[in-house]
């Protein structure tokens, strides 16, 4: 493995350097039918789950076949996407915000052939490579973060939990069975690199143990004032401690004030929180982004803790299925999950989903907590 330079000369970093050119311009990559009809689309129709048709003023039609994909994928997988795009789509392809892939063609027949091709491709162990779906009032792909694959603060894995949930809901990905779109998001810790706080269902990695303090190394590896300032609860203060008969500067933590956010660990690697028993998942539900009918909503915590059960997190899959089924069978057409919960009342939501309510679900974080308590006689028995 010899080092091969592309042209960069470390001795003269500015020589021939190109910077600040930004991304490639989007319209270089428009399929011809898109370039021609941009801004002149009349309407669209979902021909069948995973297949859209957009009609332009010109009379042109574009058929889009949407497939689900793992967000974490290899160059080999992307090259296979290129193969398909070249075979059917003149080499054009796009990704959606939710990690789906879209192939566009100009007639229904080709779209059907494309769909058949995509659905036929599988990994050797049997899972689909390009399952068609993710449209309309169904359950589309889960947006998520890195988890144990690539991050230093996660309380769980992201790709694994998403895989088991999408396996559980696979049928719904390829169907329009729900009362309205149901969006699931996953973040592997409170930082929420993927902001999951406005999703119909959110899966969130969560720590439950305060940091361990690595006293011996802390003062060498961290700026103590930054670690102290990092705590939103003011639970960390500078302190001195004795290590092997030597007094060292370190920090002390008021454990009962800790909300396990891990912000201190982000600032100071000598304060790790992760723990097999402490870490696990929180389930939130009822958020939405769209302004349709009602305002966007935050998701609410509906399950305070599910333990990490790798590799297939059976409790997680079961709980999500319970929520999805209760929603699917009980909600009205066009009613998003959170709107349904509010209409029937959260007391009914827990009943219908078979979830237990516990004191952990009552807000106690700062002043706005009050506004989530019940200040009315309007409740159900």
């Amino acid at each position, binding site marked *: 493995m010899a080092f091969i330079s592309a042209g960069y000369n470390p001795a003269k970093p500015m020589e021939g350097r190109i910077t600040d*050119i930004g991304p490639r311009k*989007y319209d270089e990559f428009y399929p011809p039918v898109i370039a021609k009809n941009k801004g002149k689309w009349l309407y669209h129709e979902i021909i069948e789950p995973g297949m859209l048709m957009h009609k332009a003023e010109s009379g042109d039609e574009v058929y889009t076949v949407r497939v689900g994909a793992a967000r974490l994928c290899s160059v080999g*997988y992307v090259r296979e996407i290129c193969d398909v795009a070249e075979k059917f789509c003149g080499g054009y392809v796009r990704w959606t915000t939710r990690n789906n892939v879209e192939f566009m063609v100009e007639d229904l027949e080709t779209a059907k052939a494309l769909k058949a091709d995509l659905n036929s491709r599988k990994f*050797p162990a049997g899972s689909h490579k390009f*399952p068609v779906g993710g449209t309309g009032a169904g359950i589309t792909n889960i947006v998520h973060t890195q988890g144990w694959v690539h991050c230093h603060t996660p309380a769980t894995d992201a790709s694994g939990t998403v895989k*088991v949930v999408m396996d559980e809901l696979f049928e719904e990905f390829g169907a329009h069975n729900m009362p309205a779109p149901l969006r699931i998001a996953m973040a592997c810790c409170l930082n929420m690199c993927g902001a999951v706080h406005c999703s119909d269902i959110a899966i969130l990695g969560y720590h439950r143990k305060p940091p361990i303090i690595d006293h011996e190394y802390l003062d060498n590896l961290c700026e103590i004032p930054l670690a102290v300032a990092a705590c939103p609860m003011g639970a960390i203060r500078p302190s001195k401690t004795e290590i092997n008969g030597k007094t060292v500067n370190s920090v002390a933590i008021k454990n009962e004030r800790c909300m396990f956010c891990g912000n201190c660990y982000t600032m100071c690697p000598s304060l790790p929180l992760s723990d097999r028993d402490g870490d696990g998942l929180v389930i939130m539900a009822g958020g939405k982004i769209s302004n349709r009918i009602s305002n966007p909503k935050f998701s609410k915590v509906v399950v305070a803790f599910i333990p990490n059960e790798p590799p297939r997190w059976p409790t997680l899959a079961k709980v999500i299925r319970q929520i999805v089924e209760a929603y699917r069978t009980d909600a009205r057409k066009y009613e998003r999950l959170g709107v349904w919960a509010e209409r029937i009342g959260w007391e009914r939501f827990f009943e219908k989903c078979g979830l237990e309510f516990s004191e952990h679900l009552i807000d106690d974080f700062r002043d706005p907590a009050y506004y989530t308590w019940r200040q009315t006689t309007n409740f159900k028995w």
Partner: protein
Amino acid sequence: MAKHATPLLDQLETGPWPSFVSDIKQEAERRKANPDNIEYQIPVDVCDDLLGILEMSYEDGETHWKHGGIVGVFGYGGGVIGRYADQPERFPGVAHFHTVRVNQPSGKYYKTDYLRKLMDLWDFRGSGLTNMHGSTGDLVWLGTTTPQLEEIFWTLTHELNTDLGGSGSNLRTPAACLGQSRCEFACYDTQDLSYHMTNEYQDELHRPAFPYKFKFKFDGCPNGCVASIARSDFSVIGTWKDDIKVDQEAVKAYVAGEFRPNAGAHSTRDWGKFDIQKEVVDLCPTGCMSWDGSKLTIDNKECYRCMHCINTMPRALHIGDERGASIFVGAKAPILDGAQMGSLLVPFVPVEEPYDEVKEVVENLWDWWMEEGKNRERIGETIKRQGFQKLLEVTGIKADPRHVQEPRSNPYIFWKEEDVEGGWDRDINEFRKRHQR
């Protein structure tokens, strides 16, 4: 033959959903076989070792990645995130495993020639593993070593004519929905505005000068497919000011069952015959619609433009022609002060090249936030701390009832001295002439 036994991960190869484990295993085998004789610039067993270290996490329930440390390319403060394994001896292929963020094309359209070149570069100089795409929108490359970073950047800029995305306390890579390119609801050209703003603010994107991260996202309409109102400090959402355009014949066709409601979004299930009264008129949040059996009437002045009727009958109803956008500021995830959605700052702004009206708002915000924001404080938190009034002041925008969902319920108005007749300086002796102690 796999380098590490992964009995736990192997269980993620079952089930119908695309298995990332199968994919990585396949990539590990391909690298080992190396059919194209690539002179891999990082360890060939990087994918094997990634599976190995991940299996270890599946066993012990804890991550095995360490803090990043500062790595990057010369002159940039972002775009690369350092990453190291905490078991480098056992998994040397991933001992260094840095992330590279490549600025995606606006709307995420690609042509395969470009895409293949990107993949070839990453195959050659990285792990061959990607995220298509990361949460912010970048095309993300997972895992390379420090010496490869400048080389990758050189090839990206010289041969692929593209650039890195953002990370750290700077402008993050902007993102847009596909907008007018393929959507009849888009009220402005989201892709172009995103592209334009990305290029206008290259310096802010690459060189950290902010208190914390700052995200732009561009949604073409209130459906919000790119989630800008939840996920961006500066969210631009398309809107219109005039009337919804109604094709009464098409409305009748929906009522007659000729067209499927909501573009066929409910097709797998039998919801019964489409009922325009129940499904459209009664669900309108403002009650501004009525249907008399042959004509749909909309009192547009009372309309919220929530998109429900348009989504439900896209062949009959169309967005208005006087188009622009609303600007929302301050969305963020919960860390540290609780989650925020973007708050409406500009009810209507025209969105036309060169987008000066949009840029003026951005720059006023930045000037203030860079002056007043604390370290690691998102702009939404600065607004909460200094008050919405301050936001209006620094952007020169007049207070409008549209700025609030409801007026304040506490009467604690912080009057300023200049607003009160007679000023605040008073003489206690004068007061005591009227009021004995």
